[in-house]
């Protein structure tokens, strides 16, 4: 095992496939926080000739983005693609290891649950679509097999299958409840119905044409994904974006957080049929969306970020309009939340419902508002600052309860910070260009881009091939990290509270699947 430093600012620790648990333990003991594990197929590279599995950790709190990360990297030999799983010491890595098992055929020896995650049971065994020798267009035949999942036995225990198609217009996801009366003993979610093959699709494209794909990863966190991708690309090329662009990115990122959080403040009320809350919330969200459209030309802020800076610039007049709109909306958000939280039915339904303990949040690697509402003081914006966050004043609110109420209240606490951040940007937006041209990208290199989206940390991994094109692109959205926590938080609650608990996490399905 040796440590070399400074690969695009990422400290790399090399490890043998079967020494991974030890190497990972070392990093964890140094206070590293697990982000994600990314597999790459580098068998065709003469200097590698193997699969490479990299475990990424955030190691240096308060450091700048470029030197804050550590990768534990292992070459997994092509002829015997197996390694020692770290899931038993790092439960947060469970899904990442299952995913690389599905898509690359890398076997994590000692993994407690190696059922298919991404590809479901109808995909033929032994076919690994993200390997380089698998052509993009190849179709697979349907395999007739049944899904296996943990079952609970006993008198009075019933199984309630829900979805993947629901009565409301929402994304597909299947949930198996093992219930006793109305109490949930175990919830087994089956997601990954919306695989679009984005990661495979961008392989071989120019780095510059990957951005639209990154924006489509998620419909409601598209700015955060775009900035993650752009950060990775810029860190690859070594370009520093203009200072005005870094402030403008903060502006759009916070506007995105704002419309999501305000929308959630209303939408969580729909989980208990509280019409006042959900209607008032969606009305406020609509006003924010219109403000977004007035500023960037897109209600969901798409197309505003470009590689090397921003694709749109703003005028003084637009900023004034935005400021006016926000000062109209902010007191109404406070009013809405005051009215909602003083309702005794809301108190009764929200409090002590869907509790996620700090220990579970830590073990599962939960991120974002859900983690902070459970007592984990995490925020990429503060811990590994990027863009102009270093120069701006904001707090990272943390609560201890971890119930639906805490997650609801968390949205308000964070929305207040976003309002304040936006004001600061509006007051001191520097003049200058908004885009720095990027000439070319280095060959056979990689970089990561990590940002704090409304749902938590979005992690993008971008590697280039021998021609400087995209060799591997991987996205771990905040949702991906948080889904296992929903199943945990539901345990012991009653079935009719599930929609409420689910809404309090407000996770997407598609960005988890890509």
């Amino acid at each position, binding site marked *: 095992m040796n440590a070399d430093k400074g690969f695009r600012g990422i400290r790399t620790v090399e490890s043998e496939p079967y020494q991974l648990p030890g190497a990972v333990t070392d990093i964890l003991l140094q206070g590293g926080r697990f982000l994600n594990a990314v597999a790459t197929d580098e068998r065709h590279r003469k200097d590698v000739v193997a699969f490479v599995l990299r475990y990424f950790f955030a190691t240096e709190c308060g450091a700048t983005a470029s030197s804050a990360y550590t990768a534990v990297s292992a070459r997994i030999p092509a002829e015997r693609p197996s390694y020692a799983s770290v899931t038993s010491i790092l439960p947060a890595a469970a899904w990442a290891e299952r995913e690389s098992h599905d898509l690359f055929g890398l076997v994590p020896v000692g993994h407690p649950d190696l059922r298919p995650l991404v590809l479901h049971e109808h995909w033929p065994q032994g076919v690994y679509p993200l390997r380089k020798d698998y052509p993009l267009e190849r179709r697979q035949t349907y395999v007739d097999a049944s899904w296996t999942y943990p079952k609970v036995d006993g008198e009075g225990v019933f199984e309630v299958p829900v979805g993947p198609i629901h009565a*409301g217009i929402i994304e597909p996801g299947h949930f198996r409840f093992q219930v006793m009366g109305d109490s949930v003993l175990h919830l087994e979610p089956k997601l990954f119905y919306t695989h679009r093959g984005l990661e495979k699709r961008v392989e071989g494209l120019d780095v510059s044409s990957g951005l639209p794909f990154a924006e489509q990863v998620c419909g409601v966190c598209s700015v955060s994904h775009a900035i993650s991708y752009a950060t990775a690309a810029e860190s690859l090329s070594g370009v520093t974006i203009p200072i005005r662009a870094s402030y403008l990115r903060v502006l759009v990122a916070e506007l995105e957080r704002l419309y999501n959080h305000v929308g959630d403040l209303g939408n969580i009320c729909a989980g208990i*049929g509280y019409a006042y809350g959900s209607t008032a919330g969606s009305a406020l969200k609509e006003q924010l969306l219109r403000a977004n459209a007035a500023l960037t030309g897109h209600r969901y802020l798409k197309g505003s970020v470009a590689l090397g800076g921003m694709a749109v610039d703003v005028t003084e007049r637009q900023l004034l309009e935005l400021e006016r709109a926000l000062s109209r909306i902010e007191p109404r958000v406070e009013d809405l939340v005051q009215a909602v939280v003083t309702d005794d039915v809301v108190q009764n339904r929200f409090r002590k419902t869907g509790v996620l303990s700090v220990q579970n949040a830590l073990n599962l690697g939960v991120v974002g508002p859900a983690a902070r509402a459970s007592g984990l003081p995490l925020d990429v914006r503060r811990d590994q600052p990027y863009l102009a966050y270093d120069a701006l004043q904001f707090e990272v609110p943390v609560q201890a309860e971890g119930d639906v109420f805490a997650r609801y209240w968390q949205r308000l606490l964070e929305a207040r910070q976003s309002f304040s951040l936006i004001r600061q940007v509006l007051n001191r937006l520097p003049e200058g260009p908004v885009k720095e041209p990027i000439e070319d990208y280095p060959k056979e290199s990689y970089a990561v881009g990590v940002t704090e989206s409304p749902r938590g940390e979005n992690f993008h991994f971008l590697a280039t091939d021998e021609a400087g094109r995209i060799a591997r692109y991987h996205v771990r959205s905040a949702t991906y990290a948080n889904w296992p926590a929903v199943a945990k938080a539901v345990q012991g609650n009653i079935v009719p509270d*599930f929609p409420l608990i689910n809404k309090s996490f407000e996770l997407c399905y598609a960005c988890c699947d890509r």
Partner: protein
Amino acid sequence: MMTAFVNVLQVLLLLVFAPALQGVIKKCKSWLQGRTGPSVWQPYRDAWKYLHKDEIVSEHASPIFLITPYIVFAATATAVTLVPVFLDSSLLASTSTLLLAVYLLGLARFFTALSGIDTGSSFGAMASSRDMFVSLPAEPALFLTLLALVLSDHTLNIVTVTAHTILHPGILLSPVFYLVLLAFFLVLLTETGRLPVDNPDTHLELTMIHEGMLLEYSGKRLALMMWSAELKQIFLYTLFIDLCVPWGMADDRATPLRLLLGVALFFIKLLFVGLVVAFVEMSYAKIRLFRVPRLLAAAMTLSLIAIVAQYLL
């Protein structure tokens, strides 16, 4: 002869306007939420749509599933013939006892719950078990409330009680009356599947009570089940009006003009009850399932206090 004709008219009126009441409440709720909302005639369009759709019946369903809509509709429609609407008599005035009304609704509820379990769908079974859980305290609460209202009349006949109340507007001054009014209203919300007990507008299958039991129905049978639910609602509102605010009803010597005034007054009262319901639904969220018995216990307590008070005051 004239009275018999008007009595038939009364039943027809409730049958025809039951969906409209549902539409009106929906419209009021939409307005309160600042939305335009569907037209008040939407329930008729829905019914028309269901009647022209194919029906899909689960292969696991037994004949109970198939006959339930007819039983439920028949029971509810029979209940409707018991109550005076705008004339102080009813089609089945001689058998019009509160006991019969309560048990006709009970019969409908029993079969609805059976049909929910019948197809083996987990949502239906969950909804049925919740409905039974709610009805366990709801039925005695309804009965106690009705008892508190009719105690002083020494009869259970709805028509007699209504006529008696019309002659004695003095009860408006009694505090007992308002206790019962409140209790009756709580029971009304529960029995018609309204917030804070059940959310009639939700698409969240996991939280449904009444709607959950209907999930497996489609086509004509769904139309019939929906109509029955709307009929039950208008029946309970009418009963509420009869027992609590019957003034303005026409009697059998009334002129056609007086009858029309009775109809108008009935609609105004109905609209008012609907408005109050819409307002309550707007301002409340759904309470936790296990809290529903407490709500009904409150209704029962109010009724009990009312009964005791009638002996003391």
